[in-house]
């Protein structure tokens, strides 16, 4: 008969214990999947943000926290743009108002509900060649603020059933949607992009911006030009792509270290559960192992049997844990991004990628098998003589 079937029967014989250990491993795996998947997505969003303006210099007010390419708060006078333009070797300087909306009227979300970006045309600086939906009908907003035109991200459009021609109310302003950004980028899909002056009016940033995107002329390095801007305009700091990465690197490293620590702890829990359960099983089945020993079963067979049993516990626990963890991750992502579950669900494999699933199952099975090694060694030492003598 097949070893796996024999092991499954052995596990089923002690079904309550097996069930409890599977539940334990499932909970550990579920926590791991939910934490890792959501944090990894968070990291992906942060990393993705630096793809914007990657060759440009970002100028912000001094003392402002910059997460990758975008400032969190802070403001500089719009007139600073003209000063920046006068700095030698500056090719273009485009002002942006970047507003993170964390919810209204007392409700606070861990991540912004939406991101409003105001800019004076030059849309391609931000969105590159991202097309607008509906194809052929969607158009970029007019810079004439009277028409109050905006384009919205894909996720916002889905969530509020918006399309070209729809209206959107932000801070009591009725805005006309002229198109939907056809991009699944985490930032752009939650973005409302509008003319700079309109954004200033809506959010009360009169004659203010919070970042200026500077393109250097050929023949000057970003570092050199950034230094020049900071020397000539002391109220701002100018950050190159590398500097922005350096700012966020410790945070990213901390998050990755935490994930590693959580992973290690949860696998340690898994190993402890498996070893404990396996030791209990072996202690109860000393007679069976001694009988196998007397029959002449090779030690490798006994080791394989115990390790297969622990591996099966790990496999079942991790599969159930992944299912529960994935559902958990969907709800967490839905909560922190304020996107309805039905919209998050199609992105399931983005939140919990197949490689991650395979990795977790493989690691769980590996850890469980390893945890079964010591008990299996003990099982091979069960001698029929001493066991029978102890029973008499």
């Amino acid at each position, binding site marked *: 008969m097949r070893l796996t079937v024999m092991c499954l029967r052995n596990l089923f014989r002690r079904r309550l214990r097996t069930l409890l250990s599977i539940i334990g491993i499932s909970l550990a795996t579920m926590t791991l999947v939910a934490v890792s998947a959501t944090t990894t997505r968070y990291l992906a969003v942060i990393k993705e943000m630096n793809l914007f303006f990657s060759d440009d210099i970002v100028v912000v007010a001094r003392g402002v926290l910059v997460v990758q390419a975008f400032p969190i708060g802070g403001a500089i006078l719009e007139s600073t743009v003209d000063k920046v333009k006068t700095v030698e070797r500056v090719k273009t300087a485009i002002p942006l108002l970047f507003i993170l909306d964390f919810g209204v009227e007392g409700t606070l979300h861990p991540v912004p509900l939406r991101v409003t970006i105001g800019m004076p045309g030059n849309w391609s600086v931000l969105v590159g060649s991202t097309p607008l939906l509906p194809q052929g009908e969607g158009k970029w907003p007019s810079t004439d603020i009277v028409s109050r035109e905006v384009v919205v991200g894909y996720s916002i459009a889905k969530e509020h059933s918006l399309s070209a021609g729809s209206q959107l109310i932000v801070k009591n302003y009725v805005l006309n949607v002229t198109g939907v950004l056809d991009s699944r980028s985490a930032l752009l899909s939650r973005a409302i992009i509008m003319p700079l002056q309109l954004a200033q009016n809506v959010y009360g940033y009169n004659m203010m911006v919070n970042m200026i995107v500077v393109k250097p002329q050929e023949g000057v390095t970003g570092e050199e030009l950034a230094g020049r801007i900071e020397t000539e305009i002391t109220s701002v700091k100018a950050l190159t792509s590398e500097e922005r990465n350096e700012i966020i690197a410790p945070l990213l490293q901390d998050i990755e270290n935490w994930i590693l620590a959580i992973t290690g702890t949860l696998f340690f829990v898994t190993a402890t559960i498996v070893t404990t359960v396996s030791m209990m099983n072996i202690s109860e089945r000393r007679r069976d192992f001694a009988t196998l020993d007397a029959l002449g079963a090779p030690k490798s067979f006994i080791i394989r049997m115990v390790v297969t049993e622990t591996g099966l516990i790990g496999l079942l626990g991790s599969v159930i844990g992944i299912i529960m963890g994935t559902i958990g991750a969907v709800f967490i992502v839905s909560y922190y991004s304020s996107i309805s579950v039905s919209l998050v669900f199609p992105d399931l494999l983005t939140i919990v990628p197949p490689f991650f699933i395979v990795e977790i199952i493989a690691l769980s099975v590996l850890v469980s098998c390893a945890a079964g090694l010591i008990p299996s060694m003990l099982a091979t030492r069960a001698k*029929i*003589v001493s066991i029978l003598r102890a029973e008499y």
Partner: protein
Amino acid sequence: MIVKTLELTRVYRLGASHIVAVNKVNLEIEEATFVSIVGPSGSGKTTLLHLIGLNDYPTSGKVFFKGMDTSLLKEKERRKIRLQNMGFIFQTFNLLPTLTALENVELPMALANVPQKTQRERTVQLLKAVELGNRLQHRPRELSMGEMQRVAIARAMANNPSVIFADEPTGELDSKTGFEIIKMLANLCRERKTTVIVATHDERIAEMSDLTYRICDGSIVS
């Protein structure tokens, strides 16, 4: 000569005291004989059986199996001999509880890498021989004591061993069933030309044996 022992001794250390379970035993057992080792409880017959069955190591003395000095064998080789040349029957049957009668008998063959088809054919044949042809798919808990011991006999014969060791095979059975089991063992021994060595305190078994060793306090007395 299938089994021969030379001054075979086994001493157990229990704390400060030493218990001589088997004391300088010399045996010579021919092939295809039905041998009983008879003695009272605690006389050392089970220990002797495990020593010649290569389940235990002697403190001194030697066991020869088919002329081979087993003290020179490695653990792996001893296991191989147990698997291919020996069968064991225990007082408490020691069937694996999660396996059916069929699977319990197939197990030694599976361990010896016998082809699956042969395993099945031989198992059915053996279980029919012990009159359990209608109980193939039953688990041990669904069998009576006598049936369990018959499965154990079939399992012991699975790899066509040269010798079967039976430790108090009737100890858990009522008198009638016990007698049937012994008759069955004796018949199989004669039909298949297998050596059977039984450790027992049942005098009826001694009467049916070709050769009887009587053991007392670890020594062969007759």
